[in-house]
């Protein structure tokens, strides 16, 4: 009876979905790709992943303790950031690289702008680009004991032959998490089935990228070239796990399509016309920056409200 008499403000019906829930599923979905990276590159990859996750979580914890704020490491978003950052580093990276990256990602990109939900760009990608600009040689050193060849994209750019099967399985050099297309797609399927991400952004991203490459790549409808572009670099990881980041992608449906096309075209421009073989991370970061603009112009009209200004213009 006393429960019935309780007066509270809405919402009265709540779903069990919470931030930490979603982030936990993202971590689980990332595990196949991360696991394959460890299998592919050995213990070095594991160390880098652990260091990077530890540094992001610790940075967030220490910052919030020092600033006397609520400790939010329980929402797992720092773990996701750390895991994504680690998966974006080559396994040859020295031990301090993931630590610097993790601190930068959380401290500068996320916490200084107000924490989760306020970050203006994807923290993991922000840190990756920071490291890429600061230590270009270390960040693109993919030569290990098993792999002495350049990455498929670099080989493609130099006009060499590449094996599509190896790329789809993931037996290729590259950053820790990006090599295996199968593992990434398995993770993405988990997220899509749970409804955590939808195909709007990744779908339009990949489709527009393929169209761009067919039109401007210089190889026309060459199957090997296109599949190598799709599976040989960070496109899959970027499209499914980083472009779909809730905070830094548009929330309107129309905006999502625009955002996806924008990313696809930018990635195409960077890969086809740019000097480096890879361009996904810069494309997504630039995309992140124009998200507020996209959202501003794609706000759906509220039900029952006429677009007053347009009618006036017609009358006049």
């Amino acid at each position: 009876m006393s429960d019935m008499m309780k007066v509270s403000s809405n919402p009265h019906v709540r779903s069990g979905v919470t931030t930490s829930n979603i982030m936990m599923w993202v971590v689980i979905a990332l595990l196949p790709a991360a696991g394959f990276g460890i299998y592919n590159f050995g213990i070095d990859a594991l160390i880098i992943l652990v260091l990077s996750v530890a540094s992001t979580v610790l940075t967030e914890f220490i910052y919030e303790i020092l600033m006397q704020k609520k400790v939010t490491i329980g929402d797992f978003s720092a773990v996701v950031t750390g895991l994504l950052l680690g998966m974006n580093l080559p396994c040859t990276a020295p031990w301090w690289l993931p630590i610097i990256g993790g601190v930068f990602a959380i401290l500068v990109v996320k916490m200084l702008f107000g924490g989760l939900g306020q970050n203006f760009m994807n923290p993991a990608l922000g840190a990756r680009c920071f490291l890429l600009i600061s230590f270009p040689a270390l960040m693109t050193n993919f030569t290990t004991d098993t792999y002495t060849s350049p990455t498929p994209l670099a080989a493609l750019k130099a006009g060499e032959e590449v094996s599509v099967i190896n790329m789809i399985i993931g037996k290729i050099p590259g950053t820790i998490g990006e090599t295996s297309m199968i593992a990434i797609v398995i993770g993405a399927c988990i997220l899509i089935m749970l409804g955590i991400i939808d195909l709007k952004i990744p779908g339009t991203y990949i489709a527009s990228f393929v169209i761009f490459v067919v039109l401007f790549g210089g190889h026309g409808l060459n199957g090997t070239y296109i599949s190598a572009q799709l599976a040989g670099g960070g496109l899959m990881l970027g499209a499914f796990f980083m472009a779909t980041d809730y905070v830094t992608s548009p929330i309107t449906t129309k905006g999502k399509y625009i955002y996806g096309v924008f990313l696809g075209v930018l990635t195409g421009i960077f890969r086809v016309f740019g000097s480096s073989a890879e361009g996904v991370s810069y494309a997504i970061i630039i995309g992140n920056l124009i998200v507020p603009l996209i959202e501003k112009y794609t706000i759906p009209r509220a039900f029952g409200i006429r677009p007053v200004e347009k009618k006036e213009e017609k009358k006049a």
Partner: protein
Amino acid sequence: MSEGKKGALGFTQDTPIERFLNGLVVENPTLVLMIGMCPTLAVTTSAINGVTMGLATTFVLALSNAVISLLRKVIPDTVRIPAFIVVIASFVTLVQLVMQAYVPVMYDALGVYIPLIVVNCIIFGRAEAYASKHNVVPSFFDGIGMGLGFTCAITVIGLFRELIGGGTMFDVQIFGEGSVVPGAVGYFFSQYQPIRIFIQQAGAFIVLAVLIAIMNQVKFNMEKKGKDTSKFGVGGCCNDIEIKDPKKVKEELLAKEKAAALETKAETIKPSDIKVPEKEPVLAEQASKAPIKEVIVPGEEDKK
């Protein structure tokens, strides 16, 4: 300006020392007023660049302030900007030629940013806000203070960018390979990998942001201790600006709001006003057209 009025840091206003400290600390052009950002971000890739740029600017600033102050009664108000430019540009040309002759290395390093001192907004700002209204001596010291404040700020920015981004300090290798520091510490330092982003443009923004944050924290701490910081960062030459009566400001705001409200009202009425005559017979429409048109016109003008 009344005699004995307190200026920056408790010194009498418009005395040389007060002007000097005002420019150096209280109204530091880079960190408090945030003007002159172009050279601040562009040339601070090394500490020596900062020093040279700062001193060149100080020279131009002090002398142009003095000359503009001397000419302030001769220059007509309507053409003051061209007149200021002529004065400033002559000093910049002087600096440029001297640097080209005696420090060609720095001249090459700073490149186009030396002639661009002409349009540096610190110099213009001080000419407009201070020198054109005050005597020669305080104007001169205002220029020196502002110039040295600028020099200090960009030297510190350059120092940090050079140290983090290249491991050097005034071109002496401190961190990274080939460190001049001997012994075990030197070995430790030589392991440092320069973070190249700090030499690039993005690094300038990061270092500048950190310095401004520190400056604001200092100000905040002073406020906590109950010191008067109202003179900090008001912008321009704050002491000369008449402070408006709050009541008047409120009245003005209210009037503006009323006008805005009227406008929006007129806009919301429009569609219904237009619709009604459409359904009615032609005569009535013609009759009602004239007054409505007047309502519509201002809205249309706004759009165009």
